């Protein structure tokens, strides 16, 4: 089911100051996709989610879930959360401690006064789906973090909602479990063909899970795109910087050539993607991600090739994290653990024109 948000405004006042948590947000979330709201804390992503669910009342604008108008300031419409027919997984899971697994999961069906047999059947089915069969009578307080997370997911899915919302559901799990659960969640959601709205501040989570990512900052949506496009060729400097580690190098556009441009920078001329079509002579930033910087002992004649020096090299287990100096500029890179460079070595640096891109400054 599609969700449409028009001109949504939500303002908080705190210590006499007005804070715009949502600053005239317009957004269409397509049906049956995994849509992620990504941004630093305080950017308004959770507020937006809570407004969609109905736990928070916006100050202005309209929200449609499918064809139904659930909130409108002008038309004075507010559909309470219990009548929006959504499923939600909370950050703290919000599993009711006084109920067992069955009652927690059956709750949404019990509110609909469904027949007991029907409830039992549906709960069994959804518990099987999240691989918790046999845990029905376990008290909610006797579950591990991962199991609580699945109970929360089962509870959100059991009434077969058309839309399911996630508020940082993995942030309370430890690193290893988080990775596993992320994969599981991805396969669950793909299997279900359901609209999922996912809020997170973790860029890896966003990239790994989403069909579409919306990056937010100070109550505004900066960019909506597919994960690859966001990572490799973002439209905005903020997004490029936020979504991963990036080297940003200042310079001016010297020559235009279709998708590409030649960019006069501090380290010399660079051929790079110019999908924003930044015009000739304009000041801009070049963005190169550390993992796309290639190092070699000998310099070969190719595009975007420079001489530099290894400034620092730190072993971090899966790789080296290096800083390479080219003139006055320091570039962060990731170096394979098998490479035999040392600090102080002179070195050849290169990167593919398709793996670096220009950003308007």
């Amino acid at each position: 089911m599609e969700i449409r948000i028009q001109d949504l405004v939500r303002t908080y006042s705190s210590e006499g100051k007005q804070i715009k948590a949502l600053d005239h947000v317009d957004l269409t979330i397509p049906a049956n996709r995994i849509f992620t709201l990504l941004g630093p804390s305080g950017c308004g992503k959770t507020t937006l989610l809570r407004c969609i669910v109905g736990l928070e009342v916006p100050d202005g604008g309209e929200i449609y879930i499918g064809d139904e108008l659930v909130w409108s300031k002008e038309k004075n419409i507010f559909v309470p959360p219990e009548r929006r027919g959504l499923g939600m997984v909370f950050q703290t899971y919000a599993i009711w401690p006084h109920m067992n697994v069955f009652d927690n999961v059956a709750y949404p069906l019990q509110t609909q006064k469904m027949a007991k047999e029907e409830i039992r059947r549906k709960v069994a089915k959804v518990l099987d789906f999240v691989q918790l069969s046999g845990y029905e009578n376990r008290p909610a307080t006797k579950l591990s973090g991962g199991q609580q997370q699945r109970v929360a997911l089962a509870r959100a899915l059991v009434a077969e909602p058309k839309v399911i919302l996630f508020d940082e559901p993995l942030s309370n799990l430890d690193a290893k479990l988080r990775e596993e659960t992320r994969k599981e969640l991805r396969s669950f959601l793909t299997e279900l063909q359901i609209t999922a709205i996912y809020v997170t501040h973790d860029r890896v989570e966003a990239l790994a899970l989403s069909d579409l990512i919306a990056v937010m900052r100070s109550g505004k949506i900066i960019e909506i795109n597919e994960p690859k496009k966001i990572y490799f060729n973002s439209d905005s400097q903020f997004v490029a910087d936020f979504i991963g580690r990036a080297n940003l190098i200042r310079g001016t556009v010297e020559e235009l050539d279709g998708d590409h441009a030649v960019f006069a920078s501090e380290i010399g001329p660079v051929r790079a993607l110019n999908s924003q079509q930044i015009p000739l002579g304009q000041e801009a930033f070049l963005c190169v991600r550390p993992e796309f910087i290639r190092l070699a002992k000998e310099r070969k004649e190719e595009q975007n090739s420079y001489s530099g020096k290894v400034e620092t090299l730190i072993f971090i287990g899966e790789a080296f994290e290096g800083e390479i100096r080219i003139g006055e500029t320091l570039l962060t890179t990731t170096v394979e653990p098998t490479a035999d460079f040392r600090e102080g070595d002179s070195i050849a640096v290169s990167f593919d024109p398709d793996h670096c891109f220009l950003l308007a400054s």
Partner: protein
Amino acid sequence: MFKKPTLTTTLIIIVGFLTLCPVIMLLLGSFSKDFVSFGQFTTSKYIAAYTDPDFADILVNTVIFTVGSALHATLLALFLAYVNTRTDLPFKFIFKIISIIPMMIPHILFSASWVLLLNPSNGILNRLFMNLFETREALFNIYSLKGMILVEGLLDLPIAYLIIAPAMSAFDVSLEESSKVCGASNLRTLFKVTLPVLRPAILASAILVIVRSLASFAVPSVVGMPGRIYVLSTHIYRNISSGFAADYGLAAAIGMSALVASITLIYVYRYLTAESGKFVTISSRGFKPTLLRLKKWKYPLLVIVGILSFVLILLPVLVLFYISMLPYSMPPSARAFSLMSWNNWIEVLNDPISLLSLKNSLFLGVVGATLGTILSIFVSYVIVKIRTTASGILESLSFLSFSFPGIVIGVGFMWFFVRTPLYGTLTALMIGYIATYLPYGIRPLSSAFIQIHSTLEESSRVCGGSPFYTLRRVIIPLLIPGIVSGWILMASMFLRELTLSVVLSRPGTEVLAVQILRFAEDGLWGRLSALGIIMILISSLLVIIAALLGSRFSKLEVVDR
């Protein structure tokens, strides 16, 4: 969502009436000549009250009594808390008992049992002492300021302990360790580091005990009055209990000074506890302090703590039971055992007034605590879950009555009820009880509400539960433990209530504690003891039933399918 402001306002009106009405009526009453001429301004009562030549003595007595009790209770609590949290003394469960159980023994019975032990003419301990040393001098005369301080200090020990013990265990031990590393001895560390850091908690405890003993009526009436030692609370009582010449205007004028003193002290207490939050350092690492090894001191200390818990818990009940079986008070002997019978019990159970007081107290305990708990649920909900200026006002209002001395509030309510048809009814007593003991219901309930994280409600709403459905399936079941402990606290307070009741109780609305006071005044110690034991049994029974019901309810949710 749209009803919340009106709920807050309604509660502010109810709680505001309950707490402020007696104060306002007290103030107005103190400027009136009598009930009939209410509203005609006169300062004659103030002049009469404060030019009374006895008043200076009463004031001095009050100061000695309250400060003495505070010293007694606080020093004892400090000792117990230190021994419990910082030494390797065995059998530490005793401390939990010492800190909680004495609250279950009504103050008037505790005072009465000490009178039975230490009164100068036939106190059991005094008699034993006289027989042992063949003297006519009593060991200790309880009918003195010393005696009052002894009993009141023991009664307030749990309160002092509950303030000092947490501060002691939250204390960052590295402060002490660094003092020891610097070369200071254990004793020097105690006096130079530990006690100074704990100062706010110690002061807070002392002030709270002063407030409690200022409001205390059981000890001054049972222990003080027979020795003609009057403090403010008994002075007020004297002015309203003297049959035909009861002067509620004078009582109100005297009461104003107790009220002002009490409110001031509570204000200081609040300030100090806010300060102590900054002062006492809680280390985030949950490590246990190294315990001081007592070695040869272990067993002497254990004996002291053992005697103390015996004196606080078992002795009063034993003395009462023993005396209830005897025709008159005497030390244990072959003769005493040969005279034992159930006569006192039979007389009490055939005494219509005792039976009426039993019925009235049970009614007030069960119905009053239920109504009080319902009010507390709403008030706690607004205080914890709706954080607005109005809910802040409600919070201050609902804890205000904590600082009001009961007998003074009783006089204030008297000025109010005498103008309504409620005068001399159980309803009047119930309104007074709920007003005075509301904080006892609100405290456990607001901590229960704090534990119910808002997402537990929100997830129910998203799952399709309406606000009412959410209340029934999620909030109420999670609140049950808080409701049960609030109910138990209120019910046991109401069952034993004395200070408010001595003012408001009228023929027909006698309650247990007042009836026990009458027995004490008439020297009917055997019947007093029998009725007292019945009172303790009933309140223990109520506590047990409530606890059982509570555990039934919280399991119900799982069974219901």
